[in-house]
């Protein structure tokens, strides 16, 4: 089986600050990979490199065998196949919920508005927000907004979903509803790369956990391996801080 995502020797700095060093990574179809690490460890930057929101300085990224860094690559076309969910939701405030969801299918995929609307309503049902179709994003709670953002990303029928700390900006009582939607997606076989601080979610849903420390991939393994017998001191230290 060919990997959905392959990363080789990826490095990235912001000025003199090296954020990622020689990262190697493969994500297989239907795999759920969870990136954990302290803030500033480079996990969000790595995720953002995967759909070219950040441009790496060195190294290679292939999405389904297509190089992301080669000249002449149609970046928007690759991004269309990858959904991304942001910490701050980033819904379009000037469009109704349903129009947030249908915008890209109509403009990028060329669907008819009716077709897109049917798909959009189906996804809203899936995230439990059918009744909010005609609401504006400003009237939604954080948890609702994030579920709409997930529906918006799914409307493009992506092959990969990227989640950048999707629950970090939420009030604690709303975390569950968003993680619930993500669990459903994982069960349905979506290929997912998730940056999160929710260790319960990582343990339950993740097929593989990667621990990033100061821009390097320090340790990886199944949830049992990484949470059960972490090898590195830094991993132990991080886990003991976050799990207490």
């Amino acid at each position, binding site marked *: 089986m060919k990997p959905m995502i392959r990363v080789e020797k990826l490095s990235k700095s912001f000025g003199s600050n090296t954020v990622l060093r020689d990262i190697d990574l493969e994500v297989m179809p239907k795999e759920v990979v969870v990136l954990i690490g302290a803030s500033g460890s480079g996990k969000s930057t790595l995720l953002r490199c995967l759909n070219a*929101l950040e441009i790496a300085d060195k190294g290679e990224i292939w999405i389904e065998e297509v190089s992301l860094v080669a000249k002449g690559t149609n970046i928007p076309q690759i991004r*269309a196949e990858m959904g*991304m969910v*942001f910490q*701050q939701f*980033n819904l*379009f405030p000037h469009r109704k919920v349903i129009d947030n969801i249908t915008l890209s299918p109509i403009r*990028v995929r060329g669907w008819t508005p009716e077709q897109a609307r049917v798909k959009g309503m189906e996804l809203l049902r899936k995230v439990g927000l059918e009744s909010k179709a005609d609401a504006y994003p400003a009237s939604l709670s954080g948890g609702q907004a994030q579920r709409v953002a997930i529906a918006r*990303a799914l409307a493009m029928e992506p092959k990969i979903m990227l989640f950048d700390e999707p629950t970090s900006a939420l009030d604690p009582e709303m975390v569950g509803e968003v993680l619930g939607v993500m669990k459903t997606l994982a069960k349905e076989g979506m290929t997912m790369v998730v940056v999160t601080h929710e260790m319960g979610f990582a343990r339950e849903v993740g097929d593989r956990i990667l621990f990033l420390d100061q821009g390097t991939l320090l340790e990886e393994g199944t949830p049992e391996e990484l949470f059960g017998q972490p090898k590195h001191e830094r991993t132990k230290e991080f886990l003991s801080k976050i799990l207490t």
Partner: protein
Amino acid sequence: MGFRFDMIYDYAPLFLRGMLLTIGISIAGIFLGSILGLGVALCKMSRTLYLRWPMDAYVNFFRGTPLLVQVYIIHFGVIPVFYGSTNVIIAAIVALSLNSAAYCAEIYRAGIQSIDKGQREAAYSLGMTHFQTMRFVILPQAIKRMIPAFGNEFIVLIKDSSIVSVIAAPELMYWTRSMSTATYKVWEPYLSAAFIYFILTYSLNKVLSYVERKTVTS
């Protein structure tokens, strides 16, 4: 000697003709200035140096020199080069449009840059191109925030259009001055002109606050 309303009445057809031309060149200036300004703003924000640098120079020149000087340069210099002879109305419209475009460009730039970068990233992540992101996500939000600034700019443009009377474009100020010279009167022509300019800017103001209310509530 009292205020000669009868004289104003006599000159009314000329004032009217002047006012129509003032409205015409102002609308043309607003229209062309805001379209050109968007292009200039997008170039100025581009990563390509060859687009950014000339547009930077353009904006600096038109904001840093008096409109009066620009009007003379365009009327006596630029238009004859392209047009053979000069034409006051074309020169007036070109000068006002180019001047307004420089100011509009800065309004666009400030408006576009005021939109959270997460909006752009979300649009990109959904597969939209740069153009689609601007067209469907950034500009619809940015333009709402720009309306008050554009209102100011358009009002300034209507008032500044009086400057083109120096190249004898037969607009409102041109007829006002000819009435004054012909009749040796001061109050009648200039107060009439002031009154007409005020009505024009005041109506524009009303239209814009209506538009602003409409877009904010929708």
